[in-house]
């Protein structure tokens, strides 16, 4: 939206346009969006309904399943358990933000190659939870991987394929020597 594209400082106080809505500016996958939102709108609904980024899924809507996981300033959070107004001035990464120029992110490649998904419903959340880990540790132990995805429920794979995929992605993301 071209309207009112003020520079968003992270500490910027939300102004209220009308009917209790707040103007918020959120950087999603590197692009800034400014929108008016009612305070009670959940971040996941803002992402899916207002921004039309439907890769972020709503599974349980009760904070248990992790399908709605996105990165908030690099940290995995459940977007069904956060208000959109809380994201004002922050950076969000959703599954749509991973591939570049039509090329899959290594973690997506790895999930494809190592059977990290079957129905795919939980996958966006699992991938983002794993990405938070891989950005700080590219050779995590199996235990670390299992802990990192412990907030995400998958009803298809039995998790082994996911664990293999995350380990393989770490390998692919490691800087090459020489």
């Amino acid at each position: 939206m071209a309207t009112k594209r003020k520079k968003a400082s992270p500490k910027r106080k939300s102004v209220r346009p009308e009917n209790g809505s707040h103007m918020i500016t959120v950087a999603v996958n590197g692009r800034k969006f400014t929108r008016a939102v009612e305070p009670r709108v959940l971040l996941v609904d803002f992402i899916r309904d207002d921004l039309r980024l439907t890769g972020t899924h709503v599974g349980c809507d009760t904070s248990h399943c992790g399908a709605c996981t996105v990165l908030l300033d690099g940290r995995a959070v459940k977007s069904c358990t956060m208000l959109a107004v809380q994201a004002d001035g922050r950076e969000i990464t959703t599954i749509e933000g991973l591939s570049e120029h039509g090329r899959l992110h290594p973690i997506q490649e790895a999930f494809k190659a190592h059977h990290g998904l079957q129905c795919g419903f939980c996958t966006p959340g699992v991938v983002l939870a794993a990405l938070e880990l891989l950005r700080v540790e590219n050779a995590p132990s199996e235990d670390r991987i299992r802990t990192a995805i412990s907030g995400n429920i998958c009803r298809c794979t039995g998790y082994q394929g996911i664990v293999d995929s995350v380990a393989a992605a770490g390998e692919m993301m490691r800087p090459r020597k020489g």
Partner: protein
Amino acid sequence: MQPHSFDYVRPQTLARAIQVLSENGNRAKVLAGGQSLIPVLKLRLANPRVLVDINDVPGLAFIEERGDQLRIGALSRHRDFEQSKLIREKYPIFSDVASVLGDPQVRNLGTIGGALAHADPASDWGTALLAFKAELTARGPNGARTIPIDRFFKDPFTTALRSSELLTEIRIPKSKAGDGGAYLKLKRKTGDFATIGVAVQLGLDAKRNVAGARVALASVGPRPIRAPGAEKALVGRKAGPTAFADAAKMASGEAHPTSDLRGSEEYKRAMIEVFTRRALETATARAGR
């Protein structure tokens, strides 16, 4: 699921936060990490008129030793404890809490102060802090007051905080040689509340006798509770299997579990005994004299 409508304010100073709280009384709710509050709002178990988001209030997130105390800002996230070297090395009981509470996503947002103010009877933080002579600072329109942890939890989801007050800081005595603690939680799966939980904090003297002991239990009463009989069974005795077995039996008797989805009363009592013994063993190993 969507919460009821509410106004949202994000004060930039502590004074302003307290002002908004005092203006709105119990129609306002404090939003910290939101990991308990937002589910509660979505289920419409609470319908506040105003949400006071304190995440921009400066000076509320810290974990540091100052003087003879460990001081913790109420807005410190569970993840901060998981990652803190100071906590890992000197207060591993809090690493225990931070690694079994919720799940990674919850730990990234949830705060210690929020968990305490929410006052779930299964509170991992509440139970762990009861194992210390912890003091809580509440700031309100008339300044700050100190609430001892033993008087903080009143009933399920009810604390000594007034509606105009904000919990800002938690303090415990600094760890010294011979001190060791542990928090053990029995849960069905990641993200679940404690079926039962046990926190113990021991102070051992040079001969490995128990000089001081506190034992606290989660999910077996209307709030996190102490087990004074178990504490008495430890003090003055050699830190070892005999005293631990006696204390564990006492704790089991002092618990008030109820049968529910997570297990029968009998099962929970049995688990309190087992987990108390194990927590005492870990605490003793950590006391490392």
